């Protein structure tokens, strides 16, 4: 048992660590990338690979096969969600930034120029 167990544990450690790595990378990208479109890249990496590697890493540890199946289903669902939401976010980003009210609840776009103003200034008021 020992060798197989050790191998399986090693597999778990390896893949989970890799998954964490993707999460770290995703978060870093989320924080450091300049605009929404690029941040989307970071998000999808964490979503697809971070969770995926963790799930794969955990597979040897589950008590029953059904649990493993559940883990895979979760991964599949996350993949689906990620795919769809990145589409949606991207579409929003290209349509022009969704309008966020400024501090006084007034509408910004009435004053600001074109609908495709992507400067992000409309959301600037959100900074606490």
């Amino acid at each position, binding site marked *: 048992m020992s060798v197989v167990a050790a191998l399986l544990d090693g597999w778990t450690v390896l893949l989970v660590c890799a998954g964490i790595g993707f999460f770290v990378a995703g978060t870093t990208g989320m924080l450091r990338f300049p605009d929404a479109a690029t941040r989307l890249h970071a998000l999808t990496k964490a979503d697809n690979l971070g969770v995926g590697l963790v799930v794969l890493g955990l597979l040897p540890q589950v008590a029953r096969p059904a649990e493993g199946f559940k883990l895979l289903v979760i991964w599949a669902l996350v993949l*689906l969600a990620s795919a769809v939401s990145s589409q949606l976010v991207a579409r929003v980003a290209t349509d022009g930034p*969704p309008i*966020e009210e400024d501090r006084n609840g007034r509408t910004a776009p009435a004053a600001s120029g074109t609908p495709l103003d992507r400067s992000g200034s409309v959301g600037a008021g959100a900074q606490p």
Partner: protein
Amino acid sequence: MIPALERAVELAIGAMLVGLALWSVLVRPRFASIVGFVVFGLLLMLAWMRLGAPDVAMTEGAIGSGLAGFLLLSAAARLRCSEIRRARIGAGEPQRARDRSPRRSSIVALGVGCAAVAAALAAAVAALPHPAPSLAPAALERLPELGIGNPVSGVLIGFRALDTLVEKIVLVVALVGVWGLAAEASWRRAPSVDPSPEIEPIRFLARALPPVGIVLAIYLLWRGATEPGGAFPAGAILAAMAVLVLAAGLGRLPPTAARSLRLAICAGPLVFLGVGGLGMGVARGFLDYPAGFEVLSIKLIEVLLTGSVAVVLLLLVAGPPEEAASANGMRRPEPPL
């Protein structure tokens, strides 16, 4: 090491929860507030898991950050649209601005007051007896009489069935209240979740996800007898799937007057009430289940309740039936200028 780690995790989640709650309340843009609320719900789920309450976590996830987030964003969109319209007309703008900026002193006073209440609560919680008196052992002990294994379900559908029953009626009444907001002309028409303009990815999602969701709901309902799960999370997931289908434009709600719809709404509570009333004749009293048929009765009630919960939640999200005006304000007619 592990206890220390757990303590650290608890502290971290707690700190994030408090911080996020404060931020959500204080941040000015409505959208940011809502996102904060959704994330708060996610973190709260983790907190519930940490407290060993997976049932609550599940419900929190489905209702707190799922359906409620959807509902809040729809409301925000609607408000936003009317604000944009008003901004052009320019009526009442300065006054609103003044209304919304509270004085610093009142914020400070509010903060001090809230802190005082929180301090009192903290002191009280610290003064609670340790270990806390609990009815959990008693509940576990009598669980076999109900023939189910999940103590939470036992409390909900057995020991405190009355509370559950009344809560379900509350849901129905709340739905009637929401319908009551309809304009006279559109009363009895169909409420709607307006399809999103961007439908391709959403339509794909709405085709792919619901089968999984339905299976998951059945699974949770089935598991509810022995493991965390049960009628409410299952109903919430079904409702979420239905909302998704509607948002993708793949379906349409029946009018509120439809008999089948109303039957679905009322079936759960009515059967619950009926089985409970039957208990007065054939069992030991109101809301007692006939001996030998406990599991059957409970299953019947749970299945119907799941359906009712799903329909009611869906309709609550859809809102009152509206004529020629959509739930999120996308197709609201122009006001006369």
